[in-house]
């Protein structure tokens, strides 16, 4: 792997007495899609949140696109613009329109004028197929549409990496497809992505690499076919067995 765009080494995270990450190393190449699976409580969300420092790692290092995220001299707000994040519960701002959600950081962090922020915001909404919903508030949108607006909010900032934390888990089954569709097109445009999800079908045909986490450590990783068909570890095997029963 020549210079990885995400380079996390020896990450540990404690919540009080709870040891949630136990020395995780994760390197992600440019344009790679890494899919993270693992049982509930294994630390997947915590790992993602350490990458953009929503959570402060207890020790270890995180370098994203050459920027040391844990260096106190790093302008964290500037750095975070290059790392998009999509949440399970969308977290759209309910008091703003879809366009308002997408343009807030463009105006306040990137310092764009309202006109150019609006133009960029509309283009981002176009990419997720919601150009016609720019004036709607989150309450007027379906769950799938809300999640696509949330994706637009991130991609409008032209991030170098996108983090997805169970982006489809809160959606009704019939709405999942539209969100996965957007994620697939993002991948095709060359976006580097780290995805925590239970959508195994998506993992099989879109992921470059699957990472299995358990109890705060990466147990094994490899191409989707290898992990799903021939897991090397017993824990991986039983987890995949459980998932596939559904």
């Amino acid at each position, binding site marked *: 792997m020549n210079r990885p765009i995400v380079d996390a080494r020896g990450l540990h995270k404690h919540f009080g007495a709870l040891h949630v990450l136990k020395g995780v190393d994760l390197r992600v190449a440019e344009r790679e899609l890494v899919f993270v699976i693992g049982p509930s409580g294994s630390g997947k969300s915590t790992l993602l949140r350490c990458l*953009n420092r*929503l959570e402060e790692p207890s020790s270890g290092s995180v370098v994203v696109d050459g920027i040391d995220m844990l260096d106190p001299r790093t302008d964290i*707000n*500037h*750095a*975070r*613009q290059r*790392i*998009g*994040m999509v*949440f399970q*519960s969308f*977290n*759209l*701002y*309910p*008091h703003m329109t879809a366009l308002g959600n997408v343009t*807030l*950081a463009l105006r*306040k*962090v*990137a310092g764009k004028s309202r006109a150019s922020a609006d133009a960029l915001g509309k283009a981002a909404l176009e990419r997720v197929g919601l150009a016609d919903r720019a004036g709607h508030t989150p309450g007027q949108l379906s769950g799938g549409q809300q999640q696509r607006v*949330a994706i637009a*909010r*991130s991609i409008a*900032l032209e991030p170098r990496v996108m983090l997805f934390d169970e982006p489809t888990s809160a959606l009704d089954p019939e709405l999942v497809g539209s969100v996965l569709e957007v994620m697939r097109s993002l991948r095709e445009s060359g976006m580097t992505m780290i995805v925590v999800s239970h959508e195994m079908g998506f993992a099989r045909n879109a992921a470059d690499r699957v990472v299995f986490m358990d109890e705060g450590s990466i147990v094994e990783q490899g191409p989707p076919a290898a992990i799903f068909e021939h897991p090397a570890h017993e824990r991986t095997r039983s987890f995949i067995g459980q998932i596939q029963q559904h």
Partner: protein
Amino acid sequence: MIQTFFNPEIIAASWPIVMAGLRNTVLLSLLVVPLGLIGGLILALLASVKNPALRWPLMAWVDFFRAFPPLVLLILLFAGLPFAGLELGGFVCVAVAFFLNTGAYYGEILRAGIDSVPAGQVEAARSTGLSRLQAMAYVVLPQAVRNVLPDLLSNTLEVVKLTSLGSVVAVPELLYQARQAQSITYNPTPIVVAAIVYFLMLWPVVRLLSRLENRAFAGR
């Protein structure tokens, strides 16, 4: 009865005095409501830092002013401070007392509003690069204020009513002026007029509030 409480001649004679009082009550409210809101915002922002070292002092500050009668605070400033060589005058005393007293109440309301906004909102904002302060200003506060609007309005009503305390330290607001007119005319009519003016001015707010409150209760 009408001659006593609603004497037309006395109404006519005291009208300009009482109206001057009304004007001052409105001006005073326009000063002390923003002052209280600023005080409250400072307290709520400090509380939102969630620093345990700040938690107890802030709570004690708020509870102190919830316990302390505003009139006593006002008298303390007006009659007590001169002994320390600090003579502030009735008007400034009212402003300071309201900043402290109503600031504590507004602060408690705004804090509850901020707490009512889900943590995911801040996380989403921070993940797009907004600073802590920007996330507060553009994402959290607008939602917080909307969530506690009835409480803010209700407190504002109380603040406007509380401006009548100004009469005790010779600030020429509505009640003070009415009492002046009463002592000149030896007739309670001016005070009745002042009461009617207060009622007409604040009744619409009371109506609105009881509708909002009933809706809030029913929504639970």
